[in-house]
């Protein structure tokens, strides 16, 4: 029935998107693009060094437009310092140095409140990738009864025990890099877009071989990459030392703070994800107290067209067949 209604809504043609800055209590601003629809309200959040274009790369690789075409009311957000939210509404560059806690306890509640006020929806559906899901853990730890009907956490690690070599090196590197206010990764992205392959098989660590086309790869490096702030890097470096994702001051271990969470949550991990290995996402899933939760790996042996890497969930050629229907099925199960 819901599916039929959504289809009817979609037949009317997609309404034009609009965008707005969302003020945050600490004076910063997030940004959100609205792709209107008459169906369930869905807020999308990107990951580290990324922006809203992760969910909306182009016509052929856009979960946001895919949702809107099926009638969903889509709000595709940028955390402060990412995408258009690198500047505030007045055009001033926003100061850097934010932590993941700032995103979870500032940006997410502000955007949720804004979207609820705009739509009148009592509860929202939330889909987050990677660091966006980690910020959601920081949000849930302080908001035990959030206005969230369902959440889908895509490739978000919370458990950093048993580090592999690259993860250990990357997290230690994050500590070192955090001495600068931000890391200008977009510069690196523009260089990467011009190269066929990155050294040290960095492409393979982001996307499983063959999942993305060379054209999508170039577009991703050109448009999706955003700077990394010193605060988020410091907090990730802390995770390396603690073996766990903790608050920026180290006082709260978020896995231990999620036992009271009752939000229905779907967790997706990629069999070929070298940033958020499935066991690290499992640590998040395992920590959440909700009795209504599910964990799924996207891989060939799990029925997908192939093994998925970290950014393949939205950008792979077959994401619309392998991933998107899993997310909408979860949202529809939790009206």
């Amino acid at each position, binding site marked *: 029935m819901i599916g039929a209604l959504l289809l009817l809504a979609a037949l009317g043609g997609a309404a034009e998107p609009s965008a707005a800055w969302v003020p945050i209590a600490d004076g910063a601003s997030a940004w959100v693009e609205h792709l209107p629809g008459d169906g369930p309200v869905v807020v999308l959040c990107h990951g580290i060094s990324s922006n809203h274009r992760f969910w909306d790369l182009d016509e052929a690789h856009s979960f946001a437009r895919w949702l809107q075409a099926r009638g969903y009311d889509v709000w595709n957000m940028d955390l402060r310092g990412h995408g258009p939210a690198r500047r505030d509404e007045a055009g001033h560059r926003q100061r850097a140095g934010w932590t993941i806690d700032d995103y979870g306890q500032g940006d997410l509640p502000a955007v949720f409140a804004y979207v609820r006020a705009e739509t009148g929806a009592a509860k929202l559906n939330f889909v987050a990738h990677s660091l966006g899901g980690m910020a959601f853990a920081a949000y849930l730890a302080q908001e035990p009864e959030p206005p969230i009907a369902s959440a889908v956490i895509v490739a978000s690690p919370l458990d950093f025990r048993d580090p*592999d070599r*690259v993860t250990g090196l990357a997290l230690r590197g994050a500590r070192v890099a955090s001495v600068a206010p931000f890391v200008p990764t977009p510069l690196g992205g523009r260089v990467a877009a011009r190269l066929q392959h990155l050294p040290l098989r960095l492409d393979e660590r982001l996307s499983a071989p063959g999942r993305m086309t060379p054209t999508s790869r170039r577009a991703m490096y050109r448009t999706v990459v955003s700077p990394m702030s010193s605060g988020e890097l410091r907090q990730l470096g802390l995770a390396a030392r603690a073996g766990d994702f903790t608050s920026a001051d180290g006082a709260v271990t978020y896995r231990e703070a999620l036992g009271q969470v009752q939000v229905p949550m779907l967790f997706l991990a990629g069999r*070929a994800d070298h940033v958020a*290995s499935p*066991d690290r996402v*499992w640590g998040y899933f395992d920590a959440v107290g909700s009795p209504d939760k599910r964990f799924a*790996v996207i891989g*060939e*042996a799990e029925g997908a067209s192939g093994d998925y890497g970290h950014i393949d969930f939205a950008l792979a050629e077959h994401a619309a067949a392998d991933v998107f229907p899993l997310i909408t099925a979860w949202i529809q199960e939790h009206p």
Partner: protein
Amino acid sequence: MLFFVATALAASPHALVIVTPGMGRDAFQPLVSELERASVQVRVQEFGCGLGGVGAHVDALVAELQRGDGDEVVVAHGYGATLALLAAERGPQRREVLLAPVLGPLPGPLGAWLAEQPVGQALDLREPLRWQGRDVWGLLVGAEPDGSCVSAAAAREAAGWMRAGPPLHLDQVRVPVWLGVSAGDALSPVEVVVPASRALPDRELVRFGLNRFDRADFRHGELLVAPEVLRAVRRAVVRP
């Protein structure tokens, strides 16, 4: 001269390599050769097709360990590694070096489908098996497996493990356990093995694959042939 040879033999490490029920001995030959090149005295435990259930396999393994000198390192892979952990409480082995043990249910739709498959008089892994038009052994094991057969009773119990996991008491395992896992392994997946293995009191975990600067993520069966994995196993066996 004979004295020196005898002393050298006594000092070289001993290993008991378990051939996983259902797999052929040839599948383990690269591993055996790697150990022998490092002067490890290797014995190989095979179970054949006629043994009873898992309990009979564990009894046979314990009996074989008791025939040794009590200072052997058990080396095993997959379901064989799970047998080694089931035997760990009773055997006199020094430690265990295990690749991709099965420590919990096989998650996902393929696991559910496999658990429902009927088992006849014996399960023959040389027979092709297809799921959603795909070769199951290729998906799970990777390279063409050197298969053999396994008793129906053991196969049925192993199918039960796919639903509920094996009846392990990892917190009771007293010997040190070295564990090798791979990101690309869908049969002993990291999301099952890594969290479950934290119950082992004395455990060292190595993650093979791209994030260890290996050539690739290895599938379950590829762990038995990848040179970088075999070298790591050899180092784990020969260490004092």
